[in-house]
């Protein structure tokens, strides 16, 4: 399939949207505008890096907030995975990330860290309302980008495209009316010029998470709320699921709990642990390169 691509920078990452080559320039223009408007709207709600966002407002003022129309799926999955991961996967990690230095100014200067509060002590969530009992810095970095990929994909699908791939900095959703799959390399956690395997997806999302980027001092961006340190047992995870929201969220959860704890969700996965050992579900659609010791 020959494609042309829309490319831009948004929410701190590079976006590449591949669409059929024969899409005329008028339509390309139209799609780009629509997608960028959607991302801007999402960012204005969920970014803790913007002074004008809803999340920033929540960090300063308690009260009852009306959530946007698209919020339900994401908040519901956050609440559910909070329970399934023994309270490790939580938007309340926001304050910990900020105190560790991962703040709006990227100060990267760690201060003293405190355990995040319990969900029920701060949040009373009943869609479409979110009641904050006290101000809190919420962070949706663990699944927000995945969800945004889904929202963008929805727009493209509604526009009747036969083929597209929405790639936001290495997390992606691929749709193809025909049966051809998309081959996606799995980045080596220690060497970004290498891959440890090749996965194939079709009308599915693949999301990756790793501690190899966004590293400062002794931290990376996945923090364990129980230990207040960055997770270290797992180096990298890849999850394939029907939505990027789910794939992105599970890719982070696997840093905290074994896959079998998350079995109420449908996904397949691979992960590389701290010793570069592979663990993968049998249904993970990939060829993975593993060392064969000579005998």
């Amino acid at each position, binding site marked *: 399939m020959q494609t042309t691509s829309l490319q831009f920078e948004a929410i701190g990452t590079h976006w590449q949207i591949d669409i059929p080559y024969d899409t005329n320039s008028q339509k390309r223009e139209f799609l780009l505008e629509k997608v960028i408007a959607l991302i801007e709207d999402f960012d204005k709600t969920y970014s803790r890096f913007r002074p004008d966002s809803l999340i920033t407002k929540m960090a300063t003022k308690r009260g009852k907030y009306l959530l946007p129309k698209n919020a339900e799926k994401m908040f519901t999955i956050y609440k559910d995975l909070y329970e399934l991961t023994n309270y490790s996967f939580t938007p309340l990690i926001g304050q910990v990330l900020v105190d560790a230095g991962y703040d709006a100014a990227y100060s990267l200067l760690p201060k003293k860290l405190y355990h995040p509060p319990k969900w029920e002590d701060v949040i009373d969530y009943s869609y479409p309302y979110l009641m904050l009992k006290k101000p809190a810095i919420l962070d949706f970095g663990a699944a927000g980008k995945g969800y945004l990929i889904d929202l963008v994909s929805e727009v493209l699908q509604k526009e009747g495209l036969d083929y597209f791939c929405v790639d936001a900095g*290495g997390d992606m959703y691929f749709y193809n009316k025909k049966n051809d799959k*998309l081959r996606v390399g799995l*980045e080596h956690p220690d060497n970004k010029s*290498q891959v440890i395997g090749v996965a194939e997806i079709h009308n599915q999302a693949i999301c990756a998470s790793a501690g190899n980027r*966004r590293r400062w001092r002794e931290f990376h961006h996945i923090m364990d709320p129980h230990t207040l340190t960055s997770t270290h047992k797992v180096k990298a995870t890849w999850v394939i699921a029907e939505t990027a929201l789910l794939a992105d969220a599970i890719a982070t959860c696997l840093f905290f709990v074994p896959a079998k704890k998350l079995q109420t969700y449908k996904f397949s996965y691979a992960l590389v*642990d701290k010793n570069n050992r592979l663990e993968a579900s*049998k249904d993970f659609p990939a060829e993975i390169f593993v060392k064969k010791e000579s005998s």
Partner: protein
Amino acid sequence: MENEEKREEQSAQSGGGAGKAVGVIIVVVIIAIAAFAYEQHAKQKTETAMTPPTKKAMVQPTSAPTAQLTLKDGTYTAEGDYMTHVGQKSIKVTITLKKDIITNADVVGEADDAMSVHFQDSFISGYKPEVLGKDITQVHLTKVAESSLTPNGFNDALTKIEKQAQS
């Protein structure tokens, strides 16, 4: 699962009788894990399980392994069968042995029903071969699933801070 477990151990591809012993041990361990996993699962579903498993389901090796064995280096394959309430299931285990140490292990589940697949999966994922990197150029890829590119500004900030720390 109350049926006694049946275990077969196939010939090693290379190596001798000693290699077989290792095959037996591996299969036994794996079946023991399977039995345990099944039992755990059944515990949660006792109301639906007609015949709860018992600990007797553990397999006894035909010949007990002796303490001091020096095994020939090589690759060994063994097939392990075990009985479940939906019939006999099997797994294939391949191990590579070097100086008495298992350097590589590969388990292939051969079950077809959902539950056995599930349990075989859960312990297959317990085997952890070391991953091998290949250059992206060599694999011919246009897409790579990776952890997000570092956000703009992050690296700049980091460089600045490192400089400050040095001065």
